[in-house]
């Protein structure tokens, strides 16, 4: 392996503000502004436009040299003013870039000043809501930016007006480190803990009926769903459908199913319509429970809702694959007491059918996977269920918990396999690892295509960014239907790569070659 400790060659992550863009664009009527130099917003717009094939507008405070020396106060205020004038959003997310953080701008204070000057109050009904988030790019990765932004959004909409603004998480705590404080729990343990809590809850209020698993306060009867990593718009649509048919009422944050996949309609609106309605976000503290999607990274928003508002929080893996989707459904049943609709039982049955149909093509096929920690985790679980052999499981973000979780899931399903698990890598190190493990198939985003080409390995494109194929926003991986589609793609790529069903070679005749040769029986046949 090329040993490199200082230089990163071909990065496998994006920086924090990108995560905040993905989060804020999932809320209704929102614009996002990067406080920093203009390049940040232009480049991220380019990246997102390539992937989603949608126009993406991200404002910038265009910090110049003067701003860098004297502080970016004036630029930020001007930027906010202009964005409000032109786009008339209801919410503006202000994400800081490395430049703004390093020059030490106190963004919340500047925003407060701005609101005073412009006469913007704190009434969520009438006034514009401005949410600052601290996302310098020298922090962890776009995953942590996403998580932090969702946390800031939930806090902003749900903070009780009497209490002063709650202090944000101290900047030096790495989100991925939170797991160090928690015990490592297997899924069975998580479920046992919930059961224990359930009985405790019932014990506290014996007068409550035993039907609902959790005591409902002044509940709106809804379920909060918050992922820790960005999923595609098609994934969001699938989950919303599932929730509509099981939970009935749900609040999905952030909802990018329309903002990043807008249809071609008569108007080109300034802000893409769609996104989680603001009233619903404010309603989150009154939900029955929060379901966080993702177990490798800490879901700060779910945690906050639990600790500050008493909404019970549960975390399941992102529902990719059979067992993860099963867990998702079982959790829904446990929280809501609803039955699993027949439609999904059928889909599950079809997935089982498909898994059996293809099991021989996939058994023992060596695979390498890279991407965001929780997506990789769920994909790996799926591959293990199918009988594949993920020899190399990697993520670009640094995550202390990643290796433990991955090794754990291998223990549970295929203890005889010994994968190579790496986190915080770049593509060059990945290439070296791929050379050593020689997988037959590569699963991840488009950036790995040069490895696929150099080593002649097929690539199944999942994740962000995917810029060399179309349909990135329509890639479905969650739920039973997503598992089916993913299964088909993986299997077909392997069938093509191994040429399992070789087409015949038609014998060539000189007569067809047009050399003037004639069929000697032509006259008889006339």
């Amino acid at each position, binding site marked *: 392996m*090329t040993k*490199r*400790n*200082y*230089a*990163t*060659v071909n*990065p496998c*992550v*994006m*920086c924090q503000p990108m995560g905040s863009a993905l989060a804020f664009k999932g809320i*209704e*009527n929102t614009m996002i502004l990067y406080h920093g*130099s*203009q*390049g*940040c917003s*232009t*480049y991220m*717009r*380019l990246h997102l*436009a*390539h992937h989603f094939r949608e*126009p*993406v*507008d*991200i404002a*910038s*405070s*265009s*910090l*110049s*040299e003067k*701003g*860098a020396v004297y502080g970016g106060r004036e630029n930020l205020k*001007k930027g906010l003013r*202009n*964005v409000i*004038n*032109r*786009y*008339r959003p*209801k919410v503006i997310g202000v994400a800081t870039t*490395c430049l703004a953080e390093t020059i030490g701008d106190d963004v919340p204070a500047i925003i407060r000043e701005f609101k005073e000057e412009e006469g913007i109050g704190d009434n969520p009904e009438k006034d514009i809501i401005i949410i600052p988030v601290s996302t310098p*790019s*020298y922090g962890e990765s776009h995953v942590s930016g996403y998580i932090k932004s969702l946390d800031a959004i939930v806090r902003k909409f749900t903070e009780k007006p009497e209490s002063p603004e709650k202090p944000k998480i101290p900047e*030096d705590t790495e989100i991925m480190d939170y797991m160090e404080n928690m015990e490592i729990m297997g899924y069975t343990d998580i479920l046992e803990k919930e059961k224990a809590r359930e009985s405790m809850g019932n014990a506290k209020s014996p007068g409550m009926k035993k039907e609902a698993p959790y005591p409902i306060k002044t509940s709106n009867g809804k379920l909060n769903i918050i992922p820790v990593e960005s999923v595609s718009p098609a994934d969001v649509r699938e989950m*919303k459908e599932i929730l*509509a048919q099981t939970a*009935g009422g*749900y609040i999905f944050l952030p909802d990018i199913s329309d903002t990043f996949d*807008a249809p*071609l309609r*008569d*108007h080109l*609106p*300034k802000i893409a*319509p769609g996104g989680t*309605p603001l*009233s619903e976000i404010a309603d989150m503290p009154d939900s029955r429970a929060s379901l966080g999607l993702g177990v490798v990274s800490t879901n700060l928003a779910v945690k906050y809702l639990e600790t500050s508002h008493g909404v019970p929080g549960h975390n399941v893996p992102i529902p990719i694959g059979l067992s993860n989707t099963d867990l998702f459904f079982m959790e829904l049943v446990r929280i809501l007491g609803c039955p699993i609709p027949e439609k999904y039982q059928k889909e599950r049955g079809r997935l089982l059918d498909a898994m059996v149909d293809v099991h021989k093509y996939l058994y023992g096929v060596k695979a390498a996977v890279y991407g965001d920690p929780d997506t990789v985790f769920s994909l790996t679980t799926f591959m293990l269920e199918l009988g594949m052999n993920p020899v190399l499981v990697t993520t670009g973000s640094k995550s202390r918990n990643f290796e433990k979780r991955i090794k754990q899931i291998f223990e549970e399903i295929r203890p005889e396999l010994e994968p190579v698990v790496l986190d915080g890598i770049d593509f060059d190190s990945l290439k070296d690892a791929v050379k050593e493990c020689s997988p037959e198939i590569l699963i991840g985003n488009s950036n790995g295509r040069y490895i696929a080409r150099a080593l002649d390995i097929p690539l199944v494109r999942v994740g962000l960014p995917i810029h060399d194929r179309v349909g990135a926003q329509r890639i479905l991986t969650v739920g039973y239907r997503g598992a089916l589609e993913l299964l088909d793609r993986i299997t077909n790529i392997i069938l093509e790569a191994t040429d399992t069903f070789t087409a015949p070679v038609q014998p060539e005749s000189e007569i067809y070659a047009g050399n003037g040769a004639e069929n000697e029986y032509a006259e008889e046949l006339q």
Partner: protein
Amino acid sequence: MIEKTGIVDTLEERQPYITRKQEKGQEIPLACDNNSLAGAISQRACVYSGARVVLNPVTDAVHLVHGPIGCAGYTWDIRGAKSSGVETNRSSFSTDMKEIDVVFGGEKKLSNAIDELAGIYRPPVIFVYSTCIVGIIGDDLEAVCKTASKKHNIPVIPVKSEGFKGNKSDGYKAACNALKQLIKRPEKKTVEKKSEIRSESKKPDIKHSKIEKMEIKKPKINILGDFNVAGDVWLVKPLFEKMGIEVIVSMTGDSTAESISRAAEADLNLVQCSGSMTYLAKWMQQEYGIPYQTVSFFGIEDISIALRETAEYFGSEEMKKKAEKILEAETNRIMPEISRVRESIKGKKAAIYMGGPAKALTLIKGFAELGMEVVIIGTQTGKKEDYEQISYSVRDGTVIVDDANPLELADLLVKQKADLMVAGVKERFIAYKLGVAFCDFNHDRVVEFEGFDGFVNFAKEVDASINSPVWKAVRQRTLNPEPLEPKKTMVESGQEKATIKEEVSEKPYSKKCKGLAPKPEFLHSGQDAVVESEV
């Protein structure tokens, strides 16, 4: 009467940047070449991007970005510049600064990174780009690079490209300064010849200087400002070679450290991307006495001018004849296709929004050759002289805009009734959503547009986009079947009223969405609404 306001609804501060072409001879009242307005969502990027687009095509160099991961990550292989040799430039190298480096300084990490990369890749040159953070925390890039240079015996060149220190044009300058350090002084005898030329050309901006017939030595030129996007320059070099001229290097498309170092041996510089490379051309003229001419290799007229002026410069009758022969043969070869395309798209209207003015100008001519007229023209980084030239070349009524943003472009496309837009990927989807055809002329493209074959490709792409049947389908945006019973109200297309007769779904989200429609200020403020395009 100069119509300054009201061309398109936009911020007060942006009005001076948009104007309409009036009668000839009038002073063009367009503000330009300033810093972008905060919050206006300019399409410009930063200084680093300017430096990166100019330097990235140097194929065998290691381009190391000293900064956090984002800058290197988003610029990884987005240039589309092709290489005939190694593709070291298509990897993205970064020092991936983390919080600890910001606090304690990143110089040590940088010098270690350079050592690592020099050892693994053994490149002939390393460019070290600085980013915003480096400018603030004060890492001494020059010192680190100097030490590394001595240690590894290769040029390690710092590029002062902190994102906030100016705008994209400053990035171009920083890149040119870096290139300067690679160009080596040629041997003595050629310098003497150059000093003759220098004494003849008194004014620094003289574009033309005749010299006596050259000796047996082959005439040499450089092409400045061609980045070989999609293989452009490979369609241009053969034309010169047929004329008997050697092209030493094109800056920076398909260039290597070695070929750049020989650039000073040229007799003439042809500058294509004037925005980025005029600075370097002027320096080469001062330093080495090499004159320069601004040319373009796009479109039949401009290529003809380029070849003829080059032949004229060298003053060789033989070369002029060869040039005429080439022009005639090539023009005849591509004329049938161009004529066919012209028949099918003539009269259509084009909108141009490019990064630099050189391409914008040459596109006006190119469209004229295809029979299309230009109704909107704008650039990100044009200067006053460039806009004057543009204004001279377009027809009355054309809107000229500097440093536009998406809302302005969307409004203009509709108001000016453009049929086709030529720009980059950030503008592509605005055009598509409005039903306007698009031609990608930016760094993303995969098809050559320069030279004669390139012009045919351009014509074909314009034809393919404008004449595609998808736009017919797009004309009817919403499906409105005839109601079966007369009492159900007919829905107006595009209006999402609450009386829509669709199945009421249980999905609370979609209900909320419909409920929002009556509050237009959240979706699009009244007069600002972009109206459906009539395409």
